[in-house]
């Protein structure tokens, strides 16, 4: 077992006694504890760290092959066997490729963003560029990745626990501002999945995952106890469909973080699950019935004891509700605004206390460190977050009316950061047009 303490400036090993998981289950046989008591005693008296003090040097890796294809194959094998890969092919982060990516930074390559927990790897702009290079990224993506990393490493993010926990949280990065279109970040059809015409989200999210694993030590079963690890190849990186916002609806970055409209920004939420909500009516419902029934179905999905969201009860979010622009437009025509929608969903997703009791959820409230969360359970029905504004409500997805999407949240905060671009950003965008063809909406299929 490693990684649990190095983020604190200690060496990456520690005096630990490890047992199979059986020992930690209710009703377990703990007699092994006595059989192995000497390991505890030795840990307190004889154990010594095997790690030398000081700062380790960043290394270069090297392979040789009979051809470029052979060398590339060997490089991928080396990265995978070194636990630096994700199973999909990667671009080896050569000096040339990293230099190219670094053109996208507004900050010096040596600028330290923080230490990626739980392993505590020092994370610089160059570290981000290396990850983005491996993930198949481009220089114009780097500003978004850096902002997402800054938000992740915020002391209030609780990232050390979220990285390591069994619940398998994954970062969800919502981008606002003109940069989304400029770098081909999807806000429309398929915005949470692969899109060859708007590929930025996949590379940025994959690079963030690479950092989590390679620098932060979140190797499955070692540095992260994520039981399933869903959504973790690329995390979730998408843009709000700002052109699809009805008149009077503010962008998410403005509502949640107070950024001026038009500011390039990221908003970081940690998700624990994804649920499609079929919200459209099927037959002869009126427009009013269509919207209201759809909202009830959304609230029904939200009315679940997502105990992972307790840590964000006061200042975080129970999740992100995403609706496509055509639905947002219908809602607005009927007088709905984002605040009104959140109010409806908050009010109607409250859980009867009896349902929490029968599921044994109350013990999770009892051990919560936040007194506001502990006290909240005195309400019946229990609201899934402190106030309606905790709920993240964004407009994104293809212009199609049938579904809404609910990403269950976790984590104590929703963290916003302004995206900083280099002065040469326009040149990078022009290069992208030369490499990938015209990226504007008019040019897309």
């Amino acid at each position, binding site marked *: 077992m490693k990684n649990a303490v*190095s983020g604190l*400036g*200690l*060496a990456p090993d*520690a*005096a630990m006694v490890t047992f199979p*998981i059986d*020992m*930690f*289950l209710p009703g377990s046989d*703990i007699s092994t504890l*006595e059989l192995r008591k000497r390991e*505890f*005693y030795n840990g*307190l*008296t*004889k154990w*010594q*760290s095997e*790690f030398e*003090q000081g*700062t*380790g040097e*960043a290394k*270069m*890796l*090297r*392979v*040789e*092959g*009979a051809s*470029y294809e052979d*060398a*590339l194959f060997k*490089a991928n094998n080396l*990265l995978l066997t070194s636990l*630096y890969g994700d199973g999909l092919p990667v671009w*080896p*982060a*050569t*000096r040339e*490729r990293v230099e190219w990516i670094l053109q996208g930074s507004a900050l010096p390559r040596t600028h330290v963003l923080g*230490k*990626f927990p739980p392993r*505590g*790897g*020092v994370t*610089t702009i160059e*570290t981000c560029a*290396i*990850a983005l*290079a*491996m993930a198949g990224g481009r220089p114009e993506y780097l500003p978004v990745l850096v902002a997402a990393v800054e938000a992740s490493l915020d002391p209030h993010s609780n990232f050390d626990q979220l990285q390591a926990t*069994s619940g398998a949280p994954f970062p969800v990065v919502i981008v606002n501002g003109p940069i989304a279109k400029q770098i081909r970040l999807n806000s429309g059809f398929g915005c949470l999945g692969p899109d060859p015409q708007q590929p930025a989200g996949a590379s940025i999210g994959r690079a963030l995952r690479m950092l989590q694993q*390679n*620098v932060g030590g979140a190797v499955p079963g070692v540095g992260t*106890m994520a039981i399933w690890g869903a959504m973790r190849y690329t995390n979730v990186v998408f843009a709000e469909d700002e052109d699809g916002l009805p008149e009077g609806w503010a962008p998410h970055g403005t509502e949640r973080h107070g950024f001026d409209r038009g500011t390039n920004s990221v908003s970081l939420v940690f998700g624990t699950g994804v649920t499609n909500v079929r919200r459209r009516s099927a037959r002869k419902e009126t427009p009013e019935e269509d919207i209201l029934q759809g909202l009830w179905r959304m609230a029904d999905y939200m009315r679940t004891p997502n105990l992972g969201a307790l*840590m964000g009860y006061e200042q975080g979010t129970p999740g992100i509700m995403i609706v496509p622009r055509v639905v947002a437009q219908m809602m607005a025509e009927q007088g709905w605004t984002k605040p009104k929608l959140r109010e409806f969903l908050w009010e109607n997703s409250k859980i009867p206390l009896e349902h929490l009791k029968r599921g044994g959820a109350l013990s999770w409230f009892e*051990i919560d*460190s936040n007194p506001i969360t502990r006290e909240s359970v005195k309400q019946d029905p229990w609201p899934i977050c402190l106030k309606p504004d905790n709920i993240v409500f964004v407009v994104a997805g293809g212009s199609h009316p049938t579904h809404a999407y609910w990403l269950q949240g976790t984590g104590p905060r929703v963290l916003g950061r302004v995206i900083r671009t280099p002065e040469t950003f326009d040149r990078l965008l022009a290069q992208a047009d030369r490499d990938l063809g015209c990226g504007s909406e008019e040019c897309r299929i």
Partner: protein
Amino acid sequence: MVTLEFHDPSGTLEVTQPFAPRLDTLEGKRIGIVTNDQWQAYRMMPKLKELLEQDFKNVEVLPVDAYPQGNLLIGTEETAKAVKASGVDAVIVGNAS
């Protein structure tokens, strides 16, 4: 032959503080237990206390509730201060999974 040289992506580690020196013996020492109260800690930690007290003369193991408990509390400055104030020679922290 083609050579491909590329960055190790794991970044660097910065070790800024050493682990506490180990004790010469547990006899006569004062031991604290910092627990998140998870993963059967409510049984395992008292058992450890019992074993230590059986095996070492004059060892004093503080009760498991001597410090704040819970995942979000055991890493706080408040807990660190409580540990320091209690004058223990060593602590056992658990349980992680």
